């Protein structure tokens, strides 16, 4: 049941892939535009996934099976450089030389990782043995053993939660949603690989909201002996052997704590993507208070934008887990189809209430 409709999906991460799959199933031609030379986005750099420890590559494979449809035109190493309204749809220019027309645009530009060098006090980019959660995944993926830069087996490893999230000074007041449980997952993985290494997680709150997350957290403590210390890291410095000296306050004990670890892992948060900003400027898309795209409504119109014919899916509107992203992508596909085929469902209106009052800003 081919239709003559086309949709451009901007971003070939998991949201873009799954949305493309579901759009194509309705007979819509999809241009899946990805700036890198591979589909899969950030998931390609992640080894195993919480809470089940499934391999990320299995999910990528599942999603790849979806985008094999004939009416999905995958455009790799492609960047949207211009967009112009044309009738009800858009004329889009890719890489300065390819022009195409789309009846609707689905933006799936995802997120960027917080730049940990912004928290200079944690020493990322300064001390050799300070790495980020993303670096740790790359080490896991490489299959190499986790070692200090000096080539030693780490005896103690610290993981710091909320780096660049819930941090007014860093300018990000929101919760990145995935780091708490990633911290628990990575701590367990370290323990699985190196049972004799002591692992400490420093947290403000542990938000185990998802199904099975709490069980994972419990397992981390009961079966793996991972120590969870409530307190935000105040500063890190380096000792002569390359060890990282941590100054933390244990807020449950009410005492300052000094601890030297061999490797420090920073659980970096998710921030609005640079790509979102560029694409947003082309279409005139509105950002919310935290810099992610602003959806038309917080509860109901969660895939609609302020621009007619442009929709959102995935982590470009807020940090999301893989589960959430896939669900959101399918919802977006449905919303785009409703728009293209004039379903009554999109005619519904809801009174807008601003979220700005939550913040002391305008």
């Amino acid at each position: 049941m081919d239709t003559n409709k086309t949709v451009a999906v901007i971003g070939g991460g998991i949201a873009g892939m799954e949305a493309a799959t579901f759009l194509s199933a309705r007979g819509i031609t999809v241009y899946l535009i990805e700036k890198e030379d591979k589909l899969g986005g950030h998931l390609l750099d992640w080894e195993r996934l919480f809470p089940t420890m499934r391999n990320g590559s299995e999910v990528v494979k599942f999603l790849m099976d979806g985008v094999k449809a004939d009416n999905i035109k995958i455009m790799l190493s492609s960047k949207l450089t211009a967009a112009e309204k044309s009738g009800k749809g858009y004329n889009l220019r890719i890489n300065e030389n390819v022009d195409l027309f789309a009846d609707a645009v689905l933006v799936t530009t995802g997120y960027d990782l917080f730049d940990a060098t912004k928290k200079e006090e944690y020493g990322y980019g300064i001390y050799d043995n300070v790495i980020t959660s993303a670096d740790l995944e790359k080490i896991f993926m490489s299959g190499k053993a986790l070692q200090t830069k000096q080539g030693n087996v780490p005896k103690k490893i610290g993981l710091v939660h909320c780096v660049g999230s819930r941090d007014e000074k860093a300018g990000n007041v929101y919760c990145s949603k995935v780091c708490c449980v990633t911290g628990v997952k990575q701590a367990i993985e370290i323990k699985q690989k190196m049972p004799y290494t002591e692992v400490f997680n420093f947290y403000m709150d542990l938000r185990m909201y998802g199904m099975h997350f709490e069980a994972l957290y419990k397992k981390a403590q009961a079966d793996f002996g991972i120590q969870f210390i409530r307190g935000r890291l105040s500063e890190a410095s380096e000792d002569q052997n390359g060890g990282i000296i941590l100054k933390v306050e244990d807020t449950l004990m009410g005492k300052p704590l000094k601890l030297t670890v061999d490797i420090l892992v920073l659980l970096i948060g998710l921030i609005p993507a640079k790509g979102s900003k560029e694409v947003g400027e082309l279409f005139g898309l509105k950002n919310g208070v935290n810099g992610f795209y602003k959806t038309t409504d917080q509860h109901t119109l969660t895939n609609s934008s302020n621009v007619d014919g442009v929709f959102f899916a995935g982590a470009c509107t807020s940090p999301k887990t893989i589960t959430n992203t896939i669900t959101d992508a399918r919802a977006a596909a449905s919303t785009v189809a409703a728009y293209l085929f004039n379903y009554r469902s999109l005619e519904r209106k809801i009174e807008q209430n601003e979220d700005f009052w939550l913040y002391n800003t305008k």
Partner: protein
Amino acid sequence: MSFDWFVLPFSIGALILIVVLISRYILWVIKLSRADRRKSWRSVFSFKLFQAVWEVFNESLLHRKIFRVNALLGWMHMTFALGWFLLIVIGSVESKFHKEKVFNMPYDPIFLRYFEHDVHGFWFAEGFTTIMDTILLLLLVATIMAVSKRFFKWIYGMKRTTKLHPGDQIALASLWLIFPMRFIAESFTAGIYGNGGYLTQTAGDIFATFLPLKSLELGAWWTYSSALCLFFLFLPFSRYMHIPTEVFLIYLRKAGVKTPDNKLTGFSEFETYSCSRCGLCIDQCQLSETTGYDDQAVYFLQKLRRNILQEESSHNCLLCGKCTNICPVGIDITKIRLLKRTEFAPEMLFNYRHYENVIHHDERKVDVAYFGGCMTHLTPKIKIAMTGIFRKLNIRYNFVDENGSICCGRPLKLAGNHMQARDLMQENKRIIIATGAKILVTSCPICYNIFKNEYKFDKIQVLHHSEYLNLLHKEGALKLTPNEEKMVYHDPCELGRMMNIYEPPREILEKSGKLIPVQKEKNFADCCGGSLANLPLSEDNRRKVSKEALTKLLAPSPDILVTACPLCKKTFSNVSDTPVKDIAEVVYERMIE
């Protein structure tokens, strides 16, 4: 003796004013410390009195400082002050000639034209009339300027002028009336008796053509006298209190009196009442520009005078010192605000015992003690640069707070907690002296300020690292390979306005690369917004202040933004896409081993 009933309002007003002023000043002098009182008596019989008179002439009459900042405003203030002063002085001399008496009534010079119709009474009488008319003309122009400033402040380059309270408004209205009324009264009299000068006579002759001057004359003089009376009565409760008070303030300053570090005295009363509410501080205030709070220096002092100051107002300030910098009266508003905070500060008990477990001090005897400070520990690139420089140059140093530290005490002081700060300072001082170092180098201007001003080391020279690095470079120990990167330098408030260190960082940066000037620098530099002096300030507002300051700094599109304060570095790093570096990092990168 010349007399008419209309002289009474003026005379009574003047008398009341004198009584109020004298009683206030006596009260404030009593509130001075004994030592300060002694200083002020002694200086009466010294050269300092002449210095004070000279400065009063320059500042209270000529208004040199306002001239420097804003020429139009300077002219207005000068003509008002000097003009009125000359009107009184020359008028008095003139009246003494007319009356041929050395001691005549105080109101005689004021109302001379009413009583004295003969302008040819003595050889220079006409000369006097011409001079007096000229002064009156200048004063009338000044009045027009003053009125226009209220309504067209942009002419004077001001975005905002001071909002006035009722006392000020009445005094202002009467002041606006005084000179036009004098002009009208004198013209009316001249129109009848022909005793005016080129201005008043001309005007009087014109008025005579269409006004019944004889019946209006007395009324005009009554109005003039009443305007004076009203001004005198409201002066002590208005901004114009600065006119008499500043004279005493200048004298006290010359006598060496100042506000002590720990409490406010009568001296700050003299300072507070010397504020003319000129409003130059208003446009300087980044915080009010961003947040809309009306707690700039002028309003803070106004609240202080009216005794309605709330704790919030004392904290609504970054203590960047820009208002103190611009103040033409030289009021140390930053200090007054800080000491007011102390009055509001709650008693707090601290327990520093846990330090014993955390801090392990290096007891080696060394040449240089290096104190990074808390903020430097949060910007470790700075401490890596400094310790790297020490090592490469083989300088025997001791990193005092390497393994944890005691705070220098200034953040507590900035919050008003002087007593608690003292405890920290004592302990810290003991630790620093124990290093045996002759030089104490710190990377943090906040620490530098308190080490230098309040620790009172006997044998230790305190240097900020920008001074120290510049010194090493001048001595030839530190050699640099400059590169082509374009740099702009941000003056930290605590290092610049508070400590007057402007040149050493610039000198060393010029030797390290291309330093390009920025629009607002040195004592006019903006605050980065990170100030520790305003803890209740929301992060959002802080970021706004930072971004605005950053935009100006990055206007010349530099490759890097350089500063000399870990707090400024941290604050700007959070909002800047251009790399932000400390001066120590720049030097460390470019030094030749």
